[in-house]
Structure formats: structure tokens, C-alpha cells
């Protein structure tokens, strides 16, 4: 009975750890890095003798995500669950795959602060489980081009300028003295 209770608590803690990790996941690149680390760990279990799973994860996973696993390992959580790392990594991999991608094209290369701001905004307005796929495209001049769930939004400065030029073509031609 006590053993069952312990296992149930361990499972809940594993799930909570996954949720915390996913909340901190901001971009597609981060997801790909974590996915790669998981693949390496899963494959390493069969090919690398005497190497612990958490060591493989430490090698490949960015620390900002690994720290959650470190905390978990420090409390001995994986050992309480009979499958140890295997099932946990499979669950994490499934959750990562289910995350939705919001594709954004910007005119500038975003820094960490900008990425954090964008991610917070999306988390606040659209909810969790969404990661950013950010591309830099100088041709748009400014603004963003956004694709999410098959919907496309062209909110770029370039598009706005072209629309204004088309709308006010006559006026512009008069201004520059072209008859």
C-alpha cells in the first residue's frame, strides 16, 4: 500500500517536472535540442555500457532544462518509479511533439530579451504549449509575418507600404510632378 502511494507520488512528480520544463520552452530550436538529448539518452541506454542516462542528458541538454531533471534526480524520484528513465523520457518526447509551433518572420535577429517578451505574450494571450519558430527576413523591413494553425498574417511594414502606394498612387504621382 505504501509502495503504491510512493509510486503514485513519483508519477505525479514526473508529470509536474515535464510541465515545468515545457513552460520554460520558448523556441523550436530549444525543443529540437531537448529532443536530440532525449534520443541520445534513449539510444545510449542500449549502446553505452556503464554510462548513466542522466549523464547523457547532462551532456546534450541545455542546462536551463536539465536543472529540472537534476532537482528530480536529487530527490531520487526516478528510482521510486519502476521504469526509471525510460518511460519518463518517452512521455517527455510525446509532450514535446504535441507542442504547437507559431512561426514568426522578423526583420531583425531577436535577442534573448525579445524572445522572452514574445514568449510571455503568447503564453498570456494564447495559453501554454506553444513554441516560437523565429526567422529573420530583412526584406519585410519591419513588423511580423505570422503563421499559426494554418492561418497566415502579413503584418509587415513592406506590405503596408505597398498597400499605401497602391491606394494613393494618383496622389504620389501628382506630388512628384508626374503627369
Amino acid at each position, binding site marked *: 500500500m505504501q509502495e503504491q502511494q510512493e509510486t503514485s507520488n513519483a508519477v505525479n512528480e514526473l508529470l509536474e517536472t515535464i510541465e515545468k520544463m515545457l513552460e520554460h520552452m520558448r523556441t523550436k530550436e530549444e525543443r529540437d535540442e531537448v529532443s536530440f538529448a532525449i534520443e541520445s539518452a534513449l539510444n545510449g541506454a542500449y549502446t553505452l555500457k556503464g554510462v548513466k542516462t542522466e549523464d547523457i542528458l547532462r551532456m546534450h541538454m541545455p542546462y536551463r532544462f536539465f536543472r529540472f531533471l537534476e532537482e528530480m534526480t536529487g530527490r531520487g524520484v526516478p528510482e521510486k518509479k519502476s521504469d526509471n528513465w525510460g518511460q519518463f523520457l518517452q512521455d517527455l518526447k510525446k509532450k514535446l511533439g504535441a507542442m504547437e509551433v507559431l512561426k514568426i518572420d522578423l526583420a531583425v535577429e531577436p535577442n534573448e530579451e525579445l524572445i522572452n517578451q514574445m514568449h510571455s505574450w503568447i503564453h498570456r494571450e494564447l495559453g501554454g504549449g506553444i513554441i516560437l519558430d523565429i526567422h529573420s527576413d530583412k526584406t519585410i523591413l519591419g513588423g511580423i509575418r505570422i*503563421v499559426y*494553425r*494554418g*492561418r*497566415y*498574417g*502579413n503584418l509587415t511594414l513592406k*506590405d503596408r507600404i505597398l498597400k499605401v502606394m497602391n491606394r494613393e498612387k494618383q496622389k504620389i504621382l501628382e506630388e512628384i510632378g508626374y503627369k
Partner: protein
Amino acid sequence: MKIDFNKYLDEIGEIGFVEKSVSSLVYASGLPGASPEEVVVFESGELGQVTALSESSVEILSFSPNPIRTGSRIVRTNNCLKVPVGEELLGKVINPLGNSINPQKPFFPLAEQRSVEVVPPGIKFRSTIKRQCETGISMIDLLLPIGMGQRELVMGDQKTGKSRVLTRILLSQIKQGSVGIYAAVGKSQLAIKQIEEILAQFKILEKTVMVVSRADDAAGMIFLTPYTAMTIAEYFRDLGRDVLIVLDDLTVHARTVREIALLGKRFPGRSSYPGDIFYTHARLLERAGNFIADGKEAAITCLPVVETVQGDMAGYIQTNIMSMTDGHLFFDHKLFVEGRRPAVDPFISVTRVGRQTQSVLQREISREIITFLRNADKMHNFASFGAELGEHIKKAFEKEDRIMTFFDQTVYDRIPVKLQVFLFGLVWGEALAGRTHLDVQKEIQKFVLLYEGDSKTREWVDKFVDGSLSLETLLSGIAETDFSHR
């Protein structure tokens, strides 16, 4: 015509990305508003059509000959597939999307576009088939008549003279004012060129629209070919013109439908064809018929072609199309090898609605010939025993030989119906009895040339045939006439 990808992207506001490409089928993510049969545009400017929707992806049939790259963007157009139609298409050879296949002969974009998928008109828009579709081929016009608006299946093995007969039927109908449409479905480039050259040689290419798809085209294009041809036929029908449409051939079309269905993991039915293969062809052939528009009749006469293997008429596609058409002309390989042209077997071939278009005299002639030929066929079986033949059997065989010489149309492209009736009267009666095969041929040739070249002879023959209300009157009239001065 270049399609503006970005225009649709800004207008519709939806985008998709190619996840997987399997031959002609493309699976894309995104496009949440996609609907079945909708046209989509790939980033490269190629077109596709939505064939299925699932929870996570959209299945698209690509019309591009080149494979679509994974990751390519796709945009919806919010339109079903339409093809340009207009009188300007006459004389052109186009692909199923309505573009000229010859880059040296482009044409300007046409104003009107019509949807390729159309619900066939209901019964109140149709009229009984009353007018005969003159093919100019004696055996067909007299024994197996086709009506204007009839769907008559042309069936037979490869190399049995089907294409030759079809081009002659086109010639005959175009000379009478109809519009011709030839749909070459998945044919080799050489075959397409040969058909084009024959039509040009007959000087009817300018009154014909050729809708072609090559054997190496995308499956989507081959699939679309007969539907595009039928859409163009409907355009001319709505202008009040009769149309003759040839669909050559539907066995290749069925194989393409099977290929697409199996790639799309549809459950295979009989012979691995999809379960809706009957519907695929039925909804096409039902668009032909005799229609009433603004009080006037205009017909789409359809000649679908189906190839058989070693004369097997009991195949799946063959029997399907036989059941949805109004008769069939069966081209027998054995008759072809014997030198019969056309190699149509009159005993196996059927016409369900053609006889009502014939005059009383023509029907009587048809009955007489069929009865005679059946009896002659039985006599051949008897004669093979090698016994001495009676006088009546020899006469019957000689008459049969005259009839077959009359039906042999190797040389003549087209014989008008009234001349056919007149010539039949000549060969059936005693006028040419006892003459050799060559003499009979020369007599027939003489009258054909006279009819074509001399308007007085033409008028006389037409008047004579119109005045003969029965076979007896026709034969007695011919017996009493002296042809030596003609």
C-alpha cells in the same frame, strides 16, 4: 498563365506546408479552411486539388509533372477547378487545365471559365433522341445506327481499327455542322501527333478541340482529361450546337483512378479498383445526351473507347461502361485480320436507342441484312463439311460477298446515308447479281464519285431514296432505272 501565389496568400489568409509527397499525392499540414475539390496553389505555381481531409493533414492531388518538395508552401484559392471555354478553343490542342500544349501556338486567356465537376442535367432538360448521328460508315448507319445524344461505347482489342472509325465519324459529323472534341487520355506523344495529323489531313482540325494528356503526365492530369473535354462540350451545347465527343480511352483513365486510390490508401475493391469507379465514369457519361435549351435541341453524342484484351468483353471496366452507355460497337480482332474494314461484329454490337432515329425504309433494310447475315453465317458452318453446295447456297454466298463489298470502307472516308441506301438497293437486288467482286467494287466507286462530284446525280439519288417508302419500292425503282448513261 502564371498564378500569383502571394495574392491568394494575402486574400485567403491561410497557408499549408507539404509534409509528405507520394507520387501525385501530397499531404499537407495547415489549410484549416480547405474543402474537398478545392483548388490549391503550390509555391512553384503548380496547381493541385484537395481530395481528402483528415484531422491532421490535407490530401492533395497534384497536377504537376515534377515532384513537390517537402516543406513547400501551399495556399487555398477558395474555388473549385475551372477551365477556360470559348470558341477560340476550336483548332487548338490543349491540356486538361486549358493551356495550349504547343508553346508556339499560345492563345490569349479566355473570358469564360467553367467548373469541371458539374451535376448532370435532370430529366426535364432532356429530350428523346430523334435525329440520327450520321457516321458516314454504311455498316454502322444501316445496321447499328447511332442517334444524336446517344452514348455508344467503342470496344475492341488494340489495333483493330477503332481510331480510324472514330476519325471518320468525326469527319462526317463536322461536315454536318457539329463541333468535334477528341479527348486523348494518357496517350503517347506519337499517338497524339498522329491523331492531330489525321484531323488536319481531313481538314477538320479547325472545327475540333483536342484535349490531351500524355502517358508521362501527372496522374491528376490524366484523371482530369475526359472531364475537361465534357465541360468544353457543354459550353458548345449551350450555344445551341451539336457536339460529338470521343473519349479515348477510358481503360487508361480507370487505371489512373486506381493508381490514385491505392496511393491514397483507399480500400481496394474488385481488381483493386476503388469502390466508386462506376460513379467516376457514370457521372461523366451522364453529362452527354440530347438536351433542350431555349426551345432548341442540342446534343452531346459521346463515343467512349474501351480496350479489351483478347476480345474479353466481360472485364470489370468493360462491363461497367457497357451498362452505362446506350449500346456498343465491338471491333473483332479476327474480322480485322480477315481484312474487314470496319472490323465491327454486327451480331455482338448493340444499339439501344439508334433505331428510333431511322426511317421506315432504313429499319426494313437493317432487319433484312441482319437476318440474311445470320442465315449466311449458319450456312458457312454447314458448308465447312465439304458437301456439294446447292444453287441457293451459292447464290446466298455470292450475295453475302456483295454485301460485304458494299460494307467495306477501306477507301471511302464517308458515304452519306441516302447514298448508302441507294447503293444497298444496287447490291441487294439483281442489278449486280453474278458480277465479280472487282466489278461490284468499281460500280460502287463509280456511284460514290458521281454523288460527290455531280450535284444533279446527288439530287436525283436523294429524291429517289426519299420517294422509296419500302424496300420493295426501292428495289423495283432500281431495277427499272437504266444507269448506263450515268
